[in-house]
């Protein structure tokens, strides 16, 4: 018990870091599902591409040999901006290629298209950049030991950055959805696409924006993953996408605060499973808990009850 309490605060930090990344990925899934009722399986690979874009920016601005070409804070900012923009545009491109032509097709068609897109992205990266692991040299931008100690907890600077930026982005997204006209349009399209169109909402544009924002968040998640967990490789999107999707479902698919909550919860469960049960069975325990949870509450934490119209 004592050991449990001693490790608890640090495991909380670990879990929140993981959870922040999962939450950002889950948001993309939830947003797209809310608007299109489509599970964008290529989302995990957009995250992977974000991580690679960040890596490429970093290797240009912080080369292996020698000094940084720009101050560290600026390099990090640029990594985020370029990755988010790049992924946002990629998201729009994916929507245009793979999903728009199938907008009125039976639901299975865009699903298969999404899977195909995922495979395409993974292999495109493997062909051009090879299947090796790339390592972010975060230590060049933020020293390894930098951080603050709160009691027994060491909150490293990188983790603080991950958690803080994720929270900031989630606040930004919530503001966008609740207080802006675009957000209102997004919510309208999510509730009833036809009615929204009849009210003068440009549905295609709204969908485009949704994909842009969702993919940009995934891109940011990719850069954050690179910064804190350092290793990026072409199939990393699979696992993270799976976890992000699970988090979105656990929080209530289509529900934005639900995705955030689901992501954080998933991260915490995973950290606790490793810390207090067994690192060997981390994945099994995490998914087992989620399966049990969904059996008890299939609509997820904040999901709306599906009304059966008679």
């Amino acid at each position, binding site marked *: 018990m004592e*050991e449990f309490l001693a490790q608890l605060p640090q495991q909380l930090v670990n879990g929140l870091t993981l959870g922040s990344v999962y939450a950002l990925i889950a948001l993309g899934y939830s947003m797209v599902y809310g608007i299109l009722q489509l599970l964008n399986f290529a989302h995990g690979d957009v995250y992977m591409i974000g991580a690679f874009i960040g890596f490429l920016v970093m290797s240009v601005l912080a080369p292996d040999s020698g000094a940084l070409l720009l101050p560290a804070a600026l390099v990090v900012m640029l990594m985020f901006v370029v990755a988010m923009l790049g992924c946002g545009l990629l998201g729009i491109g994916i929507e245009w290629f793979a999903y728009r032509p199938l907008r009125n097709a039976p639901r299975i068609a865009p699903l298969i298209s999404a899977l195909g897109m995922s495979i395409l992205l993974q292999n495109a990266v493997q*062909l051009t950049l090879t299947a090796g692991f790339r390592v972010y040299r975060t*230590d060049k931008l933020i020293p*390894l030991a930098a951080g603050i100690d709160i009691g027994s907890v060491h909150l490293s600077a990188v983790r603080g950055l991950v958690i803080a930026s994720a929270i900031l982005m989630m606040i930004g997204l919530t503001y966008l959805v609740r207080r802006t006209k675009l957000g209102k349009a997004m919510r309208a399209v999510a509730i009833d696409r036809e009615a929204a169109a009849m009210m003068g909402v440009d549905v295609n544009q709204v969908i485009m924006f949704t994909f842009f924002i969702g993919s940009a968040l995934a891109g940011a998640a990719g850069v954050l993953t690179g910064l*804190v967990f350092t290793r990026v490789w072409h199939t990393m999107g699979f*696992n993270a996408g799976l976890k992000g999707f699970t988090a979105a479902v656990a929080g209530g698919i289509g529900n934005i605060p639900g995705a955030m909550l689901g992501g954080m919860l998933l991260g915490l469960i995973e950290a606790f499973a490793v810390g207090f049960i*067994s690192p060997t069975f981390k994945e099994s325990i995490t998914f087992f808990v989620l399966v049990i949870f969904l059996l008890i509450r299939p609509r997820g934490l904040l999901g709306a009850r599906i009304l059966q119209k008679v």
Partner: protein
Amino acid sequence: MLYRSKRLASPMSLLIVFGLILTACQPAAAPAPATEAPSGPVEIKIAFFSPLTGGAAFLGTEQLAFARLAVEDFNKGMVPYHATLVEEDTDITPDKAVPVAERTAADETILGVVGPAGSGQVEATAEIFETAGLAHVSPSATRPSLATAGNKTFFRVVPNDDVQGPTDANYIADEIGAKNVYVLDDQESYGTNLADTVDKVLKQKGVTTTRASVTQADTDFSSLVTTIKGSGAELVFFAGQIPSQGALLAKQLKEQGVDIPVFGGDGFFSSKEYIDDAGGATEGSYASVFFQDIRGIAEAADVAKAADAAFPTWGNFGPPTYAATIVVLEAAVRAHKAGNLSRAGVLAEVAKTDVKILGVPFKFDQNGEVIGATFYISQVKDSKFVQVFP
């Protein structure tokens, strides 16, 4: 359907074109096909299996460079004979190795194989090779069960983990003097066996051990690090095959202020990924390897010089591959001289190998194990591997 085809034409056809362009543009990193040899001299064609891509690509590319060097040296020095190397990429996963092995076995002109590199891959392909009668000499697979499985075509030029495990464990218990060790494996064939062996020997020496597993796909060890911190371990033994994972663990240990070294097996012995990419986190950590640094051997000076010219950095994985390649090629020469240049002939001669390559003697026992080899332990000092044992 018809009315939609016009709308579909634009993005769909672009997608098709894009896909075609992608398949047409294969970068140079793809494995090169076998080069055509001039007619006249005696042709010896062997296959080379290693992870040219993937998490262990650092190993594969070094092995490939030395295999090519061996073929070049052989072709220069043994003029009537001409060797060709068929380079195959197997990644570090067993399932990639199987189709490649089947393709090699079906090619009647291939007389022997250098590789596969990983223990999991040898396990997956051993039966294919045995049925085809192809001798396969591995320069890096160290799982002991590979030799005791009764396969008559398996050989290795490096000692196995029954040597690596006790060597490492004894060093940890006696030289480093750790009393509490966390033993990790990556749930693959090589790692689990090595970690079990080390765990057993450490326990016998009275060291407290905690045993756990991670996977090769794991990206975050921070929760594990917190647990390690709580367990009071003085050292983490990580039997993995992907050095960047070892480096990650070291980084995250340092991040949480756990100042203990990581000890890896030969799977972690990569200067770029374990040392350079770790940004100093692995300073003071260890890794063991199955071949000594040939820069200290007089007979190997020429090879070392050629390697320096051809390849930027190399360590201890290349030389055993050089040796394995020469073993197969020399066996083919002896088989030809005995009038039987075929797979069976080569296999028989490999088993009878008794040569000195790079100043080191190579002879196999009846299970295909090389006789008399040891493991070497190095520590990371000043961002370099420095041999500390023997």
